[in-house]
């Protein structure tokens, strides 16, 4: 399969459906694995990395899940193509920096991707829409079991799967969910939530932002530790925390609608106005305003039919995605900002003006006396 064909369609995690998808954008689980008798990629010589890559790539390409797949060595990808894959969360930033001796294999729906010779010999991930960490884990667990028949993984009965970095040893698993939390941000509760989630040993990060200032009100919650708990326990703990965060977000939205209705209407109206009429817009501003439009769709202020086109804009307005279709080799940031604004204007012209009278809170408000 060609790169252009992979890129032409958005991933299943963006276009699909899943539980709680209004608040949970995606669920992702990645497993780190290494071959028993080969040095880890960061310590291996080039010849050893190539040997591992060929061995692993063949095994991965033969998986039934990869019957229809895209597979490429990293040196064959341009920096722009690599960046597109990073923006789609299909490879890591670290992997994008790799060249000869590293590769990536992904299935056509882009729900499964395997990075070969990233920090570990294998970093495989499954990603789906909405909150479904259990399903996503089952998916990647099956792939792991299938690979284990042809590859001998580094494993010790005391420490579990052995990884290049001791922080991943044990299950080698990082499970995460991307949450859209405009309500908690607007009501200034987000820091409180982040702190309490951190306290129980889970990590919260922004989409690209350091510290707590995240773009587009998107936050990623993931497990921090990998040793001493079984995979199902880690996911169970994560699920319970995420469900609570969802509840807090719903309550925050209900409270905003009840007590700060004018502020809420104003924000939605302004976001719509700015996006419809701007001729130059930065990636950060675009994401933050699109987040408000997304909230507006959740609250029925905009028709639900526009959910997918708006969700798509979150990815399409990222720097590399903007440039992938453009004929110029490298665009300046002014050119990107102008192109971004025009893409957004074109799409939002299909979305009717916000109808504030239709505003409703999706779940019964349980916020009285809170």
């Amino acid at each position: 399969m060609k790169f252009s064909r992979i890129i032409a369609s958005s991933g299943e995690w963006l276009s699909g459906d899943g539980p709680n998808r209004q608040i949970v954008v995606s669920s992702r689980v990645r497993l780190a694995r290494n071959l028993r008798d080969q040095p880890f990629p960061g310590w291996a010589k080039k010849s050893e990395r190539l040997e591992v890559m060929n061995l692993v790539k063949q095994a991965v390409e033969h998986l039934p899940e990869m019957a229809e797949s895209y597979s490429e060595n990293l040196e064959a990808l341009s920096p722009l193509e690599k960046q597109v894959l990073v923006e789609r969360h299909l490879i890591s930033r670290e992997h994008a920096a790799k060249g000869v001796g590293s590769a990536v294999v992904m299935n056509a729906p882009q729900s499964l991707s395997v990075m070969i010779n990233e920090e570990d010999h294998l970093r495989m991930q499954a990603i789906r829409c909405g909150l479904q960490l259990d399903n996503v884990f089952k998916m990647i667990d099956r792939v792991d079991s299938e690979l284990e028949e042809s590859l001998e993984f580094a494993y010790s009965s005391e420490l579990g799967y052995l990884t290049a970095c001791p922080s991943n040893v044990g299950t080698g698993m990082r499970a995460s969910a991307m949450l859209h939390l405009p309500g908690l941000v607007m009501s200034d509760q987000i820091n409180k939530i982040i702190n309490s989630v951190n306290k129980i040993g889970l990590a919260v990060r922004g989409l690209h932002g350091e510290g707590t200032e995240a773009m587009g009100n998107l936050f990623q919650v993931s497990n921090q530790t990998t040793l001493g708990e079984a995979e199902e326990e880690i996911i169970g703990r994560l699920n319970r925390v995420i469900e609570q965060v969802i509840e807090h977000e719903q309550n925050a939205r209900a409270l905003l609608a009840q007590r700060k209705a004018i502020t809420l209407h104003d924000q939605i109206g302004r976001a719509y106005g700015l996006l419809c009429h701007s001729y130059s817009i930065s990636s950060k501003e675009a994401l933050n305003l699109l987040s408000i439009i997304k909230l507006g769709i959740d609250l029925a202020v905009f028709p639900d039919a526009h959910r997918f086109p708006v969700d798509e804009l979150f990815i399409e307005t990222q720097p590399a995605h903007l440039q992938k279709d453009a004929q110029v080799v490298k665009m300046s940031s002014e050119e990107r900002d102008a192109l971004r604004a025009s893409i957004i204007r074109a799409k939002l012209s299909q979305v009717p003006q916000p109808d504030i009278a239709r505003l409703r809170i999706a779940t019964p408000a349980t916020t009285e006396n809170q």
Partner: protein
Amino acid sequence: MQCDVCQTKEASVFLTQIVDGKMQKVNLCEACSKEKGVNDPTGFALADLLLGLGASQEIEKSPAAMKCPVCGFTQADFKKTGRLGCSHCYTVFADGISPMLKNMHKGTDHTGKTPAAFLKIREHDEKIKTLQSNLNKAIEAEEFELAASLRDQIRQVEADLAS
């Protein structure tokens, strides 16, 4: 405030995380935060970062001249990269790594998935262990008929594994 990584530039990214009631702080400059992937949601964990900085001292509890016989990795390499050389390094540097793991994780023993091939070996090992202890008891009690039968069973299990 100086950047904890390069020790030269002014820090502008401040990370604080509380793990098991212990506060961990890292200060980074713009360039190092990018390099360490702090703004990359897919790749960053404070633990990884701390490991590359403070925790690398821990491995020095292993004797200084120690070198992994399989891949030639040394402590100095770990201090530099925060990553190990190969899976055998976990055995070679076990004394240094285990206190580090204790600080970093919920427990020190893996309780999750086991590869199917390992599961089989483990089952056999346990079977043989039980049979062997029964055999010892039988010999002590001078029940030689039982002992002979147990010995045959052990041979059978060993033959099964080899096949």
